[in-house]
């Protein structure tokens, strides 16, 4: 009985999220466009996540290279390091790690902010003043995170590759030009385009789930905490599902 109720609640939530998503696509093309608020949100989400994404990317690049190097050395394939690291970061590790970091940083932030606005009746106040709160709060935030995430992924990828280069430079005396020539030689459109498209969907998922959880937050401060927490948990799960679908589709089109 308990499991049946859990499944029922989960399916209801999926249904509500689907309706919320359809509302987003309905409102996104309708006037008035909230450009000023969109730019403010882009700045908040992009600029303020940059440091975290940069540090995470740098450490991932360092660690990945340090961990892989001994194995490649054993097979005499240390010269393949830039290609291997380049492809794995651009195709998979960069987008998913950046998205997970942003789910924690941005998704929970949106959930908590909208949740507290709901609890303190600020969303009701907007509606009473004649402003469409869905358009002003939800559409701008979802668009901002959808637009910013691919840019953050690019920055994260670049910093991760730089971290990897530092290890190669110190341990293998590889020059900057040689390292990055090898990285770009091994990368194809089939690596970059799907990863970028995937990042848009990651951004969309983070924005939609964060806004959904916050916008329909139950009353009380406990509800705000729950909204922030469940936004991160649900988004993280969704990111892996999207990732799986993206890899599956890419495999069909690009024959990985």
């Amino acid at each position, binding site marked *: 009985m308990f499991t049946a109720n859990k499944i029922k609640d989960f399916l209801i939530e999926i249904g509500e999220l689907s309706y919320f998503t359809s509302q987003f696509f309905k409102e996104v093309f309708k006037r008035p466009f909230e450009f000023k608020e969109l730019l403010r949100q882009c700045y908040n989400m992009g600029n303020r996540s940059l440091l975290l994404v940069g540090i995470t990317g740098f450490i991932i690049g360092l660690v990945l290279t340090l961990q892989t190097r001994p194995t490649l050395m054993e097979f005499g394939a240390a010269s393949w390091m830039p290609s291997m690291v380049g492809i794995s970061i651009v195709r998979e590790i960069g987008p998913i790690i950046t998205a997970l970091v942003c789910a924690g940083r941005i998704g929970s932030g949106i959930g908590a902010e909208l949740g507290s606005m709901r609890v*303190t009746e600020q969303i009701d*106040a907007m509606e009473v003043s*004649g402003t469409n709160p869905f358009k002003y709060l939800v559409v701008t935030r979802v668009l901002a995170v959808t637009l910013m995430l691919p840019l953050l992924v690019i920055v994260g990828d670049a910093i991760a590759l730089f971290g990897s280069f530092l290890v190669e430079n110190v341990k293998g005396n590889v020059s900057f030009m040689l390292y990055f020539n090898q990285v770009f030689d091994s990368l194809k459109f089939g690596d970059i385009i799907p990863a970028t498209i995937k990042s848009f969907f990651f951004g969309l998922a983070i924005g939609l789930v964060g806004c959904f959880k916050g916008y329909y937050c139950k009353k009380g401060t406990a509800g705000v905490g729950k909204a922030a927490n469940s936004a991160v948990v649900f988004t993280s799960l969704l990111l892996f599902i999207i990732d799986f679908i993206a890899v599956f589709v890419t495999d069909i089109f690009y024959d990985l």
Partner: protein
Amino acid sequence: MTENNNIVKQDIVLEIKNLYKSFGDNHVLNNFNMQLFNGESLVVMGKSGSGKSVMIKCLVGLMEADSGTITVMQNDITKLDHEALDILRADIGFLFQGSALYDSMTVRENLEFPLRRHSDKFGNDLDTEKLVTEALDSVGLVDAIDLMPSELSGGMKRRVALARTLILQPKIILYDEPTSGLDPITAKEIIILMQNIQKKYGTSSLIITHDVDCARVISDRMILLIDGTDYATGSFKELSTSKDLKVKAFFKQ
């Protein structure tokens, strides 16, 4: 045409007929009826959880009633589409219980916010700066214009929220527990402010409260909301001297 406390009751600006609202098995509003006349201060009093806030939220379309009609200035809001409701909302000010100031915006931005949607109400004469200053002046807080809500006290927040409701020059102001959470002195200041605003702008006021002192000072007429219905109606004096036990319970100190 009837008269009560110098209010000439000829124009009904707001009317609720046979309003029902339930949450599952909890019947919050059960055939509730009321009328608000032009220029009147009507207080709806009820215990906590009696459905006062539900009723006032149904009035502005924040909640949908199960059945019944709500007519605001000859418009049945239960039949209006979203666009028409938004236009009508420019004539209805709403003071929220917790002030509901947008905490990421300054006081100025809070006051400018309603003008984004309803600037056409002022035609070409829209002078945002003047409107904001005038509204803040009405509540005596011009100096707070560039402060953030987090820098304001509870009483100041309530005043700024009041200024925000005034900025669109509404014909009706709905007050949801205007004095709750305030100390007695600040509560009295807010009540005086509400009276001054009513005199200055000639608005009609619907005040939801459980504060007997507030009701005594501000009401032209009162409705007691008991068991989801308009149990008793009359002036403060009439109700406070009533022999009905349920009515008497409200006025026991």
